[in-house]
């Protein structure tokens, strides 16, 4: 199978324990003073030229955050974070926001090129610089395949700010708004005000509240009624600055009868110290709308001794607000030293549907505590959870999930399948399902398995000619197949490669 072969080749090309995306980009940046207080928040808000109500909202969040305690219930252990020893805002130095890709610091473009994110290539399609019929001449990077080119609109977030958003014009033609949230606050404040914080309230949890106070940028998407978004939307997050927290905020609204598929990818340089990432993502699906949200999370996981790496404390929640709406989360989690993340669905509308497909891989000293919440509020709501956890090295991998059917959720149905795979004997896999049914007509099914890649299985594959690493990659790819298939095509291959890379050094 070529994909497996490719993955192994890719693994070979990079050194053991060397995180491929671990380079640092030297650019001048504009930072807020270290530490967190009212002034930091005013600084961020002023930088973004925000309306007064936004600043008030942030300050309110900050006041509430000061009364909250960091949660300790997850199965993760880390030294105490000193929140006053962080920078809360860092932006590549620039007079104004870039008007076109030409104005973006070439160093940043180079970074995105190394990451394989085709900003340049998209430029031709932006229509900024060339007449419509003069295409394909650009050569470098242009993946002009057989006519039907797969196109993905990208919003690139570097440290605290969005540096480029591609395809804006074409999306605008369809009526789709896709822009940094800071820009949406200028151009469509009424939409932001109407929806921000309605899924993840300001006081939701310690990290979400912190995010509400200091979020700097992120993506904003609005798909108008009846519109099927003409392409995949994608955001790439990169933390570059030292000692900088990244607090992005994403808000996606699919109006009645619309559809959008959105993908986020994340990387960071390799550093000795830990970096904090506390994002909030809110999805809102109105009547008959559908949102498909995919994540390929590849933050720096720390070195082989567990030094450094990203602390990833993320709150992601979708609200199926209208009847027959649907929200689907797919995630591939391979990075971060610590992952604390539970993408959830509130199934408010009758006949609405929530899905959660997850592959969480931990290696080295990584700690993952991840899962989902499916809250059934409306009648005949359906949810489906497929989780595949793979633990290797000395890592700990926990699935934590809640399925809850409320009193009015007549005919609610859930199916959960949680499989864990262990590689080696120094890692751990844990499954913690919570189930609450408050009405008798709810049907909730839970299946779980834990298995180990056995020596016998590896020997069988090796006897047929596969090296040990090829054998592990093959077995793991088989294990996660159901979930990989739910990723958008464009990213499935990338995902498959990433799986092999993250399992590098897991055997032997």
């Amino acid at each position, binding site marked *: 199978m070529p994909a497996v*072969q490719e993955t192994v080749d890719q693994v070979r090309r990079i050194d053991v324990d060397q995180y491929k995306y671990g380079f640092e980009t030297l650019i001048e940046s504009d930072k807020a003073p270290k530490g967190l207080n009212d002034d930091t928040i005013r600084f961020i808000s002023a930088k973004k030229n925000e309306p007064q109500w936004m600043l008030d909202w942030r300050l309110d969040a900050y006041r509430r955050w000061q009364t909250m305690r960091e949660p300790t219930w997850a199965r993760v252990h880390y030294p105490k974070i000193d929140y006053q020893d962080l920078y809360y805002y860092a932006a590549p130095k620039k007079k104004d926001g870039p008007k076109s890709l030409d104005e973006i610091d070439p160093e940043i473009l180079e970074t995105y090129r190394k990451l394989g994110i085709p900003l340049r290539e998209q430029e031709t399609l932006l229509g900024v610089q060339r007449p419509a019929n003069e295409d394909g001449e650009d050569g470098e990077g242009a993946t002009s395949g057989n006519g039907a080119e797969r196109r993905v609109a990208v919003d690139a977030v570097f440290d605290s700010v969005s540096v480029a958003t591609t395809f804006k014009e074409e999306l605008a033609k369809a009526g789709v708004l896709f822009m940094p949230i800071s820009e949406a606050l200028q151009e469509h404040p009424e939409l932001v005000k109407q929806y921000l914080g309605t899924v993840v309230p300001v006081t939701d949890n310690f990290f979400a509240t912190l995010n509400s106070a200091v979020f700097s940028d992120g993506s904003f998407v609005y798909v108008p009624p009846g519109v099927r978004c003409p392409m995949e939307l994608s955001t790439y997050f990169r933390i570059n600055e030292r000692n900088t927290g990244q607090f992005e905020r994403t808000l996606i609204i699919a109006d009645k009868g619309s559809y959008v598929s959105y993908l986020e990818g994340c990387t960071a340089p390799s550093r000795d110290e830990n970096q904090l990432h506390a994002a909030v993502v809110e999805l809102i699906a109105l009547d008959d709308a559908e949102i498909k949200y995919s994540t390929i999370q590849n933050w720096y996981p720390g070195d082989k001794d567990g030094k450094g790496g990203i602390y990833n404390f993320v709150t992601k929640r979708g609200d199926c607000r209208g009847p027959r709406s649907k929200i689907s989360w797919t995630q591939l989690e391979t990075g971060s030293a610590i992952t604390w993340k539970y993408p959830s669905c509130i199934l408010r509308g009758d006949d609405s549907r929530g899905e959660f497909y997850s592959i969480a891989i931990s290696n080295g000293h990584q700690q993952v505590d991840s899962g989902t919440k499916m809250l059934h509020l409306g009648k005949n709501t359906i949810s489906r959870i497929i989780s595949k956890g793979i633990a290797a090295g000395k890592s700990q991998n926990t699935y934590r999930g809640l399925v809850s059917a409320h009193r009015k959720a007549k005919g609610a149905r859930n199916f959960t399948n949680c499989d864990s795979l262990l590689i080696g004997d120094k890692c751990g896999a844990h499954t913690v399902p919570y189930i609450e049914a408050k009405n008798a007509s709810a049907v909730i099914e839970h299946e779980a398995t834990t298995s180990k890649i056995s020596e016998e299985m590896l020997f069988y594959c090796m*006897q*047929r*000619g596969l*090296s040990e690493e090829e054998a592990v990659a*093959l077995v793991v790819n088989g294990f996660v197949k159901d979930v990989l298939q739910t990723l958008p095509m464009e990213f499935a291959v990338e995902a498959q490669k990433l799986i092999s890379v993250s399992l590098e050094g897991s055997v032997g």
Partner: protein
Amino acid sequence: MALLEIKNLHVSVDGKKILNGLNLTVEKGQVAAIMGPNGSGKSTLAHVLAGKDDYEITEGSVLFEGEDLLSLSPDERAAKGVFLAFQYPLEIPGVATMMFLRTALNAQRKKRGQEELSAPDFNRRVFDAAAKLGIERDMLRRGVNVGFSGGEKKRNEVLQMALLEPKLAVLDETDSGLDIDALKIVSDGVNRLRSPERSFVVITHYQRLLDYIVPDVVHVLSKGRIVRTGGKELALELEAKGYAQYQEEMA
């Protein structure tokens, strides 16, 4: 030069001696049967030849085409042409048989510095070989050995053998768990692969299999060494008299 030359092989598992100065030579193109009672070291021999861990080789040598086999990893041995048909083939969920075959074949070809096979060429080879073994295409799309019956698993082993074209095929109790129809299909499959370029080591407890795969030579293994060697008629003698005499001889 013999294809396989085992000299004075001593092997222990967890401190317990299993092979005890085993000598065995297999000529090119030869079908050698190894018969012996339970616990005589038959499966250990098969696993040691294929390079499985957990076996401590304390003494002796194994030469394959004159080269030291014991210093090679299992996948390197596979690429050199050593194939083991497992007594209990493993299941690999989510990995389609077709994909497994292709990954294995291309991995071996790559190690030998050969080009990968093109998809149409590969498909043709698999479908041809599968048809001869009565393996349905639907089975090739299913996960490797997942939900296969005992007979299907053994046929799948022979399919892999046919595709990988080894120089030495070791069959570890391939007859175990097979009814007479399945035994016949599997044996026919093996017989089709017999050639002057390919040798077989057929490990079995019962003579029954050797009615279908007729050996050139029969070796009797008892307490970790070959105690007698003869023609195919030796198998019949064993069937009639049992292994008791060899176990006593050793005692």
